[in-house]
């Protein structure tokens, strides 16, 4: 059994662990760089091999663009933007969970009760038309109540 407030606190701890790397004196943001772009030259070639309409080598111009993209992705500004995007979309998800999961009279919820709502919401995030999460992220629209 869990209260919605406890769930939010736990989720914030999950976010902290995903988004940051422990470091002294301050935790460092995790950049997700190897998730966003291929980490090795071999991986880069593997990406280019997927598209038959592009050359299968990394030209100097392409190399420069990729380097620039990596620099931006690792910048504090990009980290701030990513955290804002995550704040918005996680808040959207939690507000749906809280609105649609029934709690008992004393305000507590079984953790397992979130499962069906989370499952339904996952489908909406993946295939929703129009996609509310995309609207929240790309267009800055907030949830209509």
């Amino acid at each position: 059994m869990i209260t919605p407030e406890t769930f939010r606190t736990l989720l914030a701890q999950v976010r902290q662990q995903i988004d940051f790397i422990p470091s002294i004196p301050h935790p460092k943001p995790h950049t997700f760089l190897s998730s966003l772009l291929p980490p090795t030259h071999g991986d880069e070639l593997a990406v280019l091999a997927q598209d038959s309409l592009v050359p299968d080598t990394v030209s100097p111009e392409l190399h420069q663009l990729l380097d620039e993209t990596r620099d931006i992705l690792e910048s504090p500004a990009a980290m701030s933007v990513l955290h804002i995007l995550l704040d918005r979309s996680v808040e959207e998800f939690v507000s749906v969970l809280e609105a649609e999961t029934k709690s008992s009279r004393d305000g507590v919820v079984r953790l397992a009760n979130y499962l069906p709502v989370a499952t339904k919401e996952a489908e909406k995030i993946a295939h929703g038309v129009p996609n509310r999460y995309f609207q929240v992220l790309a267009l800055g629209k907030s949830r209509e109540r």
Partner: protein
Amino acid sequence: MFSVLALYPNMAQQILEELRVEPILAELQQKRVATTAGASSVRALSTSDEGDTATKASMITTNTNLDSEDPERTVLVSQRKSKTELWNELKIKSMNCRFGLADVGLVRTLTLIYSLSALVLLSRIQFNLLGRQAYVASILALAPESTSGTAPAIQQIRLREESSLGDLELQRSFLSFSWWLVHRGWRTILNRVHSAVEDIFSS
């Protein structure tokens, strides 16, 4: 942002396939239907206040419409015994998943959210860089052709930009790199989300 809408469903589908909970819920549904076979419409409701919240989690409504003349019939099923059976069933089923049942829904939803946010960020950066390149090229195209009076730095930029001016191949190559996140990168996101959810929610 059109590219995000075009790419995301593919990635999302892979994430959903990786962490399928539907078969578990379908199994639950089948079991529920089996316990009330013959009803044209089956609705399992809890009659107990105390068990209400837990029951809602496993409440499945099935409307088979086999006999349209019958008004929808609601069958109240005592949940006390079958609920335990069903959740045990769910636990056994979830052994087939890579992750435990308790956090599988949360892991997959958070992975979808992180992947979508990452794709939005990556696409914006890609288009900003290509847009800047096109902008510089267009400004240089408007500049006088003569290079005699132009500063060397501008000449250098012009040379560099001319080589890629209208270079759709370069643009296409650069944009094709979102393939990595859509087909590979989300897995490392999933692993990171999973270990965090497991650490926090199991402690």
